[in-house]
């Protein structure tokens, strides 16, 4: 029996004459953390945007639990239990931390109804925001805003969580806490696809990685194997240094 949660098949997207994603295919297994790696401009965020419905695909499929996500609106994809964070952290700046998280609780896959308030409180505790519930999210520090974004995504009760450089820009202590949080979320049964550049986080967290360059997949496998692939080394360091 297949344990694939998401199957991405021949996904492609061009912006004018620029082919951002060239027919990429890969699987995401239930319960794993899959790293989506590659140099800047390789098309990783575009893949995240295609899977989450933020942009329309030119062709291809993204099958989740038997249904194709391509062609659906972002809110429909979210209600099919796919949540995401953004490369540049996005909080609702004038709303409180609690209200930010309530957004996911109230409109996600399984709206919490009367228990919404308690669900939001639980999530705030879970991501370490317990004391900041009434603070406007725009006044929080960078890592706190990232936690808000994560809690809001989790509030929609995802089976698949797409993290777009969630660990970027964190100091060493924050990074340790961030990695522990991601491990905890996976332990709670959420499958994760993460675009990331922090190599030791990739090695510690990811079960497998897919490496992209110029819109195409160039390697796939365990972090050690894929990152040692000569083509991956060439993509990151250039031909002369490889």
């Amino acid at each position, binding site marked *: 029996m297949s344990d694939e949660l998401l199957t991405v098949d021949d996904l492609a997207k061009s912006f004018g004459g620029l082919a951002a994603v060239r027919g990429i295919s890969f699987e995401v297994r239930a319960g794993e953390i899959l790293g989506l790696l590659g140099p800047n401009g390789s098309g990783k965020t575009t893949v995240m945007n295609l899977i989450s419905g*933020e942009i329309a695909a030119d062709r291809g499929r993204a099958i989740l639990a038997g249904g194709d996500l391509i062609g659906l609106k*972002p*809110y429909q994809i*979210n209600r099919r239990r796919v*949540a995401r964070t953004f490369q540049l952290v*996005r909080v609702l700046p*004038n709303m409180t931390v609690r209200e930010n998280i309530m*957004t996911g609780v109230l409109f996600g*896959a399984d709206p919490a109804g009367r228990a919404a308030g308690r669900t939001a409180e639980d999530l705030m505790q879970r991501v370490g925001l317990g004391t900041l519930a009434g603070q406007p999210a725009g006044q929080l520090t960078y890592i706190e805003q990232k936690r808000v974004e994560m809690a809001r995504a989790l509030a*929609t009760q995802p089976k698949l969580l797409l993290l777009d450089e969630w660990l970027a820009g964190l100091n060493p202590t924050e990074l340790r806490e961030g990695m522990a949080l991601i491990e905890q979320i996976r332990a709670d049964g959420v499958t994760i696809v993460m675009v990331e550049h922090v190599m030791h986080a990739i090695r510690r967290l990811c079960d497998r990685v897919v490496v992209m360059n110029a819109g195409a997949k160039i390697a796939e496998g365990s972090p050690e194997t894929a990152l040692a692939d000569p083509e991956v080394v060439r993509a990151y360091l250039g031909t002369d240094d490889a």
Partner: protein
Amino acid sequence: MTSRLFLSAGLLVALAVLAAVPWFASAYVLAVGITILSFTVLTTAWAAFSGPSRYVSLATSAFFGVGVYSVAVAIDYLPLPVVLAIAAAVGFAIALVVGLATLRLSGVYFVIFTFGLAELTKQVMIWYEINQNQTLARIVFVDTSTEQIYWMLLALAVATLVIAWGLRRSRYGFALQVIGEDETVARHSGINTTALKVLSFALTAALMSLAGAMMSLRFTYVDPNTAFNSFVSFQVLIMALLGGVGALFGPLLGVVPLVLLSEYLSGSFPYHFNIVLGICFVLIVFFLPTGVAGLLQGWAHRLTGRAS
């Protein structure tokens, strides 16, 4: 609990006093009251959608005008309640179509499009009246007294406030706020942003059209330049900004002083009315960026802070 009881009782007393105005007020006061009620409906409806969503619409005059003309066209053939229902339905339908086409736009593009829509509606109406109807104006003959128009508008204003209150307290009102904060986040948090924006835009447009329909009975003489006067869109915007869109009664705090100011200026400076009003608008935006409601809330916070 007790404070809620007092508030409810206070609102009921205020409503009873307002309903009794036609029995003791002069004709002039009643006329001003009608203008205030009409703008209360327009501004509260405008703020219910544009306030939380931050989609600043300048199409108020289009929906108002649609209401005015629904009555002008249909009142000779149908009873008033049916005509009012038609006015609301036409306003709703137009907003639905326009919303589907324009609410994908955001920011300044939406503002410009709605302004263009209002002007287009007016020009189409002028063209139709001249070329198809061979006239530029219509006379609305209805056996409706000024008092009845006042009561109809009062009922509509109360209904609009109740709808706006209900929307603010509902998850849909919360979702509109999320859209105003960051629409991308809203989309990825399970909110059907298109449906919510279009339906709430259409609902508030229907209320604006109803206000126009009731005012049509008051105007008697109706022409496209009066019915679709784009200045109304700006007046509503300024009233909402002056009052503050963050509180339910905020728009009302803008409507009353600005209608009274307009009345005073039009009487005292008939030739420079628009210039003086324009200067007042600039001063309001400059000195009261959060509106009267924001100013009052700020004072309340300061007092609470001192007390604690």
